[in-house]
């Protein structure tokens, strides 16, 4: 991706900012300005809580260019508690650990880099919910 493309979507990718439909209240991610539920215009920003659960997952041993550094890693479809399904890497997890239905929370991590001299790419991943005493 070009630097400008990374730059344009930074808000949604750093912190899971999507949209809320002013007509039917559907929560939308990724933002697309049109509500997938009712088809009306939806441009109000919505900050997702970041909480959800693993809907499905797969582990990649051969990562695409720019992502080799972190291989092997697990990519999951995460069902956010507000509804939308999001595809993202799981992190702070060992490759054999994930399971469907596991509660997860969003964290912002390094996704990769555009070579040694290029920009660093940051974005959301999901990890098992931090256990608190």
């Amino acid at each position, binding site marked *: 991706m070009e630097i400008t493309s990374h730059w344009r979507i930074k808000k949604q990718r750093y*912190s899971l900012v999507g949209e809320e439909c002013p007509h039917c209240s559907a929560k939308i991610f990724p933002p697309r300005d049109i509500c997938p539920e009712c088809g009306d215009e939806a441009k109000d920003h919505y900050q997702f809580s970041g909480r959800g659960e693993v809907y499905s997952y797969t582990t990649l041993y051969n990562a695409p260019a720019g992502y080799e550094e972190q291989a092997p890693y697990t990519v999951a479809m995460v069902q956010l508690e507000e509804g939308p399904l999001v595809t993202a890497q799981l*992190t702070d997890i060992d490759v054999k650990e994930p399971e469907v239905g596991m509660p997860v929370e969003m964290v912002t991590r*390094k996704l990769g880099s555009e070579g040694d001299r290029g920009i660093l790419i940051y974005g959301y991943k999901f990890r098992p919910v931090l256990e608190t005493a």
Partner: protein
Amino acid sequence: MTEERDQKIMQPKNPVGFVGYGAYIPRYRLPATEVARIWKGGAAGTPIDEKAVAGLDEDVITMSIEAARNALARAQINPADIRAVWVGSESHPYSVKPTSTVVAEAIGDTPHTLAADWEFACKAGTEAIQAAIGFTGSGMARYALAIGMDTAQGRPGDPLEYTAGAGGAAYILGPADESLAVVEGSYSYTTDTPDFWRRADEKYPSHGERFTGEPAYFHHITSSAQELMEALGTKPVDYTFVVFHQPNTKFPQRVAKTLGFTHEQLEAGLLVPRIGNVYAGSALVGLTAVLDASKPGDRILLVSYGSGAGSDAMSLHVTERILESHELAPRTEDYINRRTEIDYATYARFRGKLSQ
């Protein structure tokens, strides 16, 4: 004489304090015995038990974002009301391009804010706090975010490799009447002392061996702690807790004893045996553990140290707001307990010590 004393310590026109705090420590741990196994045939004594190590997708930017989110959760303010994001570190991911702009963007603080990275070895974080006290205390800003965070590097086989860890903390400075701990006064002691350095194009730091102790760490910390307490008219016995920069277990224990503090005052914030020396985050993450354990009315003395060299001292007074803030974000102990042990080979991969 009194007037001269008063000018040495710093107190803002409008009283300010910490309205939020948050820690971050990564999940991986490298036992010091692993370093000894590789470099000393397992026959060496170790300065700590183990150190925290950042994962492959973590750096000072990602760790600062999580600590800042925890501080925001405790402060319960709108992130857009923050007027400065200042990150102190020795391991900013870019040489040119601020860590702080990414952090400001990720927490929803852009665009109406200052953002800059701070450098002063291990006291870059407390230096940012000193500036944030002035920035909020002058009335220029209601809130300012100051962070100390590091993924410290030690040259393979160097004594620093046992202790150089990863972690840190974020603090939101704001009006005293919203604070969970009010700043009673602060002080900074600085000299040109070459005890530890890293030249611009070098990957690993160098140090002046035995020069790092007496004229550097001990002299600067005792001077700044004593000057601040003298100016405020406080004594060690007036403090519930004390937190020092902690490059290893022995140094803070010895400086505490020299200054007249007890083991009990030091213990709650002494995290180095379990997470290592997290450089710019060291005293600051220790302070989060102390705040986790604090009650209204407690007094805390924070004393950082940065090579090169300098020490910041701050006297804090804990308020009623501390109680409600505890549960609003993970405690430091939650992060310490989230522990996955790794061996030296995994550590070498995580920290980019393998080259082909």
